[in-house]
Each structure stands twice: as C-alpha cells, then as structure tokens.
C-alpha cells in the first residue's frame, strides 16, 4: 500500500491488510479482538480516512511517471500466479492450517484460576471483561478519559474559528 501513489487505492490496500490481520487474530483464537479489528479498523478508521480523502479531494502525489498499462498487466499476471500458487499450497496442506498443538500451547478452559495465576488466555469475551474490570481498572478509565479528551479536541479543532482573522 505504501507504493501506491493514489490515496484511495492505498486506503483500499490498507483495508485488505487490516482484514488479513483480523484473519490472523482468528487463527490465534482471539475472536473478540478479530471482530474488534474489523469493526474499529476496517470499519470506522478506514471510513474516516476515505471520508477525509474524498473531502479534501486529494489527488495522486506528483511523481515521476505512472506505470504503463503493459507493466501493470505483467504485475497483475505475476500476482495471479502467486495467488494460485499460495492457494495450491494451502489446498495440499489444508489440515495443518490450524495451529499445531505441539508448538502452540493448548487452551485450558479451567474456571478456577482467575487471580491465582494471572489472567489465562481465553477465547471468551467474559474473560476480557473480567481482566478489564479487575487488573486493568485504571488503564481503562484512563483510556476512557483519553477518548473523551480526543472527542472534545476534535470538536474544538473542527469548529470554525473566526478569531484569528479578526485579530489580524
């Protein structure tokens, strides 16, 4: 995405990579964070980016030259071959796409140890809530205050300020 000169195509590639990261979160068995990633990043943040890009009407950066259609076609064909190769490899070894239990530790769903051994990794959302409300009580309040400050700051920034021109 960093090599695309046009901001809109960069944003589109960014959405692709963010959804890919969300898929990796699913593979790491933290489904709540994957959902949050899609909602927050690929939803809210990128919509905000695209909105600002289209609001400011940002064109492509002035550069040397654009890629010709010929080169674009060659790169497209290469990318298609790469995709087909990856899909073939994945199709041959599909069952191993799940996490190998000999390398990755198995999730223990024992309900006993909350405070005894720290917070155990869990796929459940309730354990997130438990951790946020007990061990991370102060950070969540600080982050809530930070969100409030960001909101107030954005409102003040985007308000029309007649003062500067009047003073001058």
């Amino acid at each position, binding site marked *: *995405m*960093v090599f695309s000169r046009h*901001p809109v195509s*960069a944003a589109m590639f*960014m959405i692709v*990579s*963010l959804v890919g*990261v969300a898929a*990796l*979160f699913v*593979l*790491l068995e*933290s489904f709540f*964070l994957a959902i*949050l*990633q899609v909602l*927050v*990043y690929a939803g*809210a*943040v990128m919509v*905000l*980016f695209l909105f*600002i*890009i289209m*609001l*400011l009407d*940002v064109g492509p*950066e002035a550069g040397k030259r654009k890629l010709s259609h010929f080169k674009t076609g060659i790169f497209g064909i290469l990318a298609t071959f790469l995709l087909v190769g990856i899909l073939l490899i994945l199709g041959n*070894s599909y069952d*191993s*796409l799940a*996490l*190998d239990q000999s*390398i*990755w*530790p198995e*999730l*223990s769903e024992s309900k006993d140890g909350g405070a005894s051994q*720290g*917070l*155990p*990794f*869990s796929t459940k959302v309730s*354990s*997130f809530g438990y*951790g*946020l409300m007990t*061990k*991370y009580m102060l*950070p*969540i309040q600080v*982050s809530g205050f*930070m*969100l409030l400050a*960001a*909101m107030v*700051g*954005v409102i003040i*920034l*985007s308000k029309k300020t007649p003062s500067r021109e009047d003073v001058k």
Partner: protein
Amino acid sequence: MMLSVTPQHFLILSFLLVGIGFLGLLIRRNVLLMLMSLELMLNGINVALLTFSRVGGNLDGGIFVFFIMTVAAAEVAVGLALLVALYKKRNSVLSDDMGLLKN
C-alpha cells in the same frame, strides 16, 4: 508436504508490517498516507503482542491490544481533524508544504 504455522511466522509478519509502515512513513509526502502507515505499524505491534499472549497463555497481551486499538482510533480522529484544519490554512496535505517556521 507438511506446513505448520509457528510463532516465528507471526513474528516475521509483524516485523514486516512494522517495516512496511516505517518505509511508508519515510517515502510518502502525503500526511494522510503517513497516518495510514502509522496505523500499519500499530497493527504489526498488535500481531506481535497477540502472538506472545497466545504462546505464553496469558491474556495481558490481548488486553494491551485492546488498549492499542483505542489509542489508535483516538489518534486517527485527532490527526485527521488537525489535517483538515491545516488544509484550510495551507490548502495542501503534503508535508513539504508545512514548514511553518521556514522562510
């Protein structure tokens, strides 16, 4: 052919994401794209944190990912508002045109 996903793969990907984000921060002159590169770097850090959290069997890394997402969303909102305010003044989003103290 037997492939399996190891933590090293996740860490390599996380390193690559941070590297690509940093490269984008260096080579782009559009501030919007620089903000997007920052987001990409934060995502790479999220991947690394969640990998270690999963390997160590500890939820603390996951909760840190949660906080990083919060901070990133707030940062994007404030950054874009600043950018719009700056665009109103200077009529450009390129970082070359923002040397305020330069003659």
